[in-house]
């Protein structure tokens, strides 16, 4: 089943066509990576898919249903979740509370019950906390639960965002450069987390610069350049595509990509 499809998606800012006629089809359970140089439109594409931007043309379908006009919170309710390139952590809250917010979709108490702190709320808080701790454990942050989010290192914050996204129990997870700024050890950890996510049947759409990671775990790779599709296929197909190799992987990149298959 196609869990995410875009059809002739386009958006322009001022005179710049940030995304131009892009078609994507992501199958359920896949790891689908989007690569391309900075400025090629990868994060813009994510913003379009998650509903932060409204496209000028084209359409978006999530799980077979049209999602083009939907607000971000409605797309979240359809099973979409994402992390952010520039981190959108709730710095004033604790690590645990950040992930607890991720459970919002599954929380069932109303504002009146919340005001009065009825037993249903007490139960809900407990359930939310348990689920949040489980998500933290998955990314290896269980020990940091009570710390303020602002006290975490950058790599840990990236994992926190993943935990928070996981807490929503998504069917489709968009990861925007999850390994950016991470050292090789942290990147390995993120790699392991992504693999375990995929094993749970969650579809992962990945924007990443780390070519080794991309080539290792992707089922399909989509290459963007200047807002347009340059190529798409399996990792082998993409890395051996002359145009892609020449323009975007560069010498170093293609060596890294080759090493991924060793």
């Amino acid at each position, binding site marked *: 089943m196609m869990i995410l499809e875009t059809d002739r998606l386009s958006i322009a*800012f001022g005179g710049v066509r940030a995304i131009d006629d892009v078609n994507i089809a992501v199958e359920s359970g896949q790891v689908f990576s989007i690569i391309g140089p900075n400025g090629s439109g990868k*994060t813009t594409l994510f*913003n379009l898919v998650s509903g*932060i931007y409204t496209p000028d043309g084209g359409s978006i379908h999530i799980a077979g249903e049209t999602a083009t006009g939907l607000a971000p919170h409605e797309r979240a309710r359809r099973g979409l979740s994402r992390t*952010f*390139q*520039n981190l*959108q952590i709730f710095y004033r809250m604790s690590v645990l509370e950040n992930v607890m917010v991720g459970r919002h979709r599954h929380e069932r108490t109303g504002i009146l019950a919340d005001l009065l702190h009825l037993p249903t709320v007490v139960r809900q808080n407990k359930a939310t906390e348990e689920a949040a701790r489980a998500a933290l454990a998955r990314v290896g942050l269980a020990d940091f639960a009570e710390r303020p989010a602002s006290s975490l290192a950058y790599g840990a914050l990236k994992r926190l965002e993943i935990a928070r996204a996981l807490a929503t129990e998504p069917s489709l997870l968009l990861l925007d450069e999850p390994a950016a700024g991470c050292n090789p050890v942290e990147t390995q950890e993120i790699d392991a987390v992504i693999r375990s996510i995929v094993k749970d049947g969650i579809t992962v759409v990945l924007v990443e610069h780390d070519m080794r990671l991309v080539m290792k775990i992707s089922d399909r790779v989509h290459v963007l350049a200047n807002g347009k599709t340059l190529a798409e296929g399996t990792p082998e197909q993409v890395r051996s595509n002359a145009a892609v190799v020449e323009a975007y992987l560069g010498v170093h990149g293609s060596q890294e990509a080759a090493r991924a298959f060793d």
Partner: protein
Amino acid sequence: MAELLQFVFSGLTVGAIYALVALGFTLIYKASDIINFAQGEFVMLGGMTTVFVAQAGVSLPLAALIAVIVTTAIGLALHRFAIEPAREATSVALIMITIGASIFLRGMAQIIFDRRFHSLPPLFGADPIQFGGAAILPQSLVVLASATAIVIILWLFIERTIFGKAVIATAANRLAARLIGVDTRRIVAFSFAVSAAIGATAGVLITPIALTSYDAGTLLALKGFAAAMLGGIGSAPGAVVGGILIGMFEALAAGYVSSNYKDAVAFLIILIVLIAIPQGLFGRAKIERV
């Protein structure tokens, strides 16, 4: 018809003052992204200082000059002591600082001056000029002419001098301006000084018509801000157009609807503009990038 003309003229007159206040807002906003709520106090200080200095025996033109200089100094002090130390504050925090400054200046004016209404003698006498059945005060013409002159001078300065170019650069992109050697702190201080001077001048000019008192600033600031928003905050021509429009709407509402609610016009306009066209008539909508 004569009635309409009357309202148009009083609307233009008070609109010119709102335009000057709005211009002051816009200048500071362009240079620093700050909404300066003390803008109205600059107008009040211009009028009140002139009144009290003149009462002390100083000749009127000199008193007015002193008032403008003192107010300009206060504007610079406001920047130096309240704005500069809070550089990294959020926009809301900065608004609260300028509101605090506005109330502080009001409170001090109440003590240093007094709580009564005051007036100044008009420049060319108080006999109204008859025009098409409407009676126009000569001071109104003074206000209109002066406001036009100020706008032109400011425009010439910004467009034609190096310092003016530096202001434009700072307004466009502060970091980039600093990187090419513009001292953005001085530019922001300059914008406060000029806004204060413009405000004070407006205060001196309008006091013969509208009187002044220690708390005249608040309402003026709000209406001037409404004008700036209507025109599109960050747009100088917009500020002028916005000011004239608000003045006209106010005068027409006072004449044809109810004079009690004339103050409400500006606030209603603020709400309508913010809800319907937040970028104003001449402004540009901002896109938030994630």
